[in-house]
């Protein structure tokens, strides 16, 4: 197995600040905005984007956490049932602009599940998608609105996002190649 780092802590920080600016620009401010992080690593990323927005716009943006386990389309294909974590979105999402945040966009199935989950919680005015890495290989007609980095990969590779909040290590994005 070999590893290649494609993002270091500084690059991740800058990418998230840029995404925050793009979100504010696209939505002409941050009124009616709610950030929703998809568990696990979307949650700290959403919190960081919210902090960047608070810095630049001088206003707090509500942040929620979404667990999509119960909406997966592959539950019966997996091994033992994965742990279901709590969905916590204090704010009513109806009529608001929801920005979904996740670490890696790959097949698009997680986002599909997240869209279903959001629909059960209310009717947002619009939903946008922000991801740190877009690695391609979509299996569904979806795209991200805000991307930290486009990173072409092969399906055999694994994209590993490590964050200090979830992984107790310095921030990094690493591509892991299986040895051929």
């Amino acid at each position, binding site marked *: 197995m070999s590893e290649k780092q494609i993002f270091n802590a500084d690059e991740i920080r800058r990418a998230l600040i840029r995404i925050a600016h793009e979100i504010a620009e696209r939505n002409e401010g941050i009124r009616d905005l709610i950030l929703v992080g998809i568990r696990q690593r979307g949650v700290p990323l959403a919190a960081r984007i919210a902090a960047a927005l608070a810095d630049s716009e001088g206003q707090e943006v509500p942040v929620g956490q979404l667990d999509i386990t119960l909406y997966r389309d592959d*539950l019966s294909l997996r091994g033992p049932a994965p*742990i279901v974590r709590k*969905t916590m979105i204090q704010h009513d999402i109806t009529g608001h602009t929801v920005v979904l945040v996740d670490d890696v966009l790959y097949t698009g199935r997680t986002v599909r599940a997240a869209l279903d*989950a959001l629909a059960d919680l209310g009717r947002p005015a619009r939903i946008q998608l922000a991801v740190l890495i877009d690695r391609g290989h979509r299996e569904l007609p979806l795209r991200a609105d805000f991307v930290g980095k486009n990173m072409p990969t092969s399906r055999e590779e694994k994209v590993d996002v490590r964050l200090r909040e979830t992984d107790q290590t310095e921030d990094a994005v690493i591509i892991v190649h299986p040895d051929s």
Partner: protein
Amino acid sequence: MSTISAAGFHNRHVLDLDDFSREEIEEVLETTESMKEILAREIKQVPTLRGKTVVNMFFEESTRTRISFELAARALSANVINFTAKGSSVEKGESLLDTVRTLQALGADMIVIRHSQAGAPHFVARNFKGSVINAGDGRHAHPTQALLDLFTIREKLGGLTKLKVVIVGDLLHSRVARSNLWGLTKMGAKVTLCAPPTLLGPSQFWQATWPNVELSYNLDTALKGADVIMALRLQKERQLTGLLPSLREYQTFFAITMERLALAKKDVLVLHPGPMNEGVEIMPEVINSKHSLIEAQVTNGVAVRMALLYRLVNAGQPA
């Protein structure tokens, strides 16, 4: 016996808590919290069990357990079939085995079973390709009740370790007490069983399985330092079989009254699995007091059963 390995069999069914590890119990309790959030939503439904069929097989009467399982299965979008012995081919003499085979042929994925015979759920589990959840069998086990009790206590007190729990009432006939003993002791609680000698039975009967359990015939002394009291239903028909001189005498010495709560810790919590005989094993003032978790137990029951149904979502698939 079946060819399924012990571990596989255990992961495929919920028959009692004896084969659950502490970690597995904790996992169920954590999942229950997530399920509770779903039940607080306006749309109380997620698509997880879409297309799966859950059969509620109740050979014994039940209100809360059956409705609770039905709500839980529906909240996960399963198809729910309610089967009661009355009005079925059981009345024509169809055996349990034939009934299970019929349900299997009709495409049932999970069976929730309550039966007056201890071991009936195990028997069904050995003869059914899907998953089985025990909703109460004879005097043996009632694991979903125990898990909802554990969840309700933990939710209120933050944990179970080192809590003193007094279970009082008809222990001899209680499946709720037995499953709770497994659950509570695995989670590190200290359990005292309290009943008149005729309803408690010999001490080795308990201590052979749960060596650290304490036994008492005196509720007033047993309640000292108690964090939690679990009252059990006094099955009124027991008086007829000579186990009790009178309900009045039982009430005098073993009923949970406000005066007795004062003997326990100040914020002692009271649980009861229901149905209750108000004025016999528990007084109405206690039920309506701030000590009572009885309504929370019923509410939490749905979330616990969702967590268990979810746990078995893949279990029917051969590995």
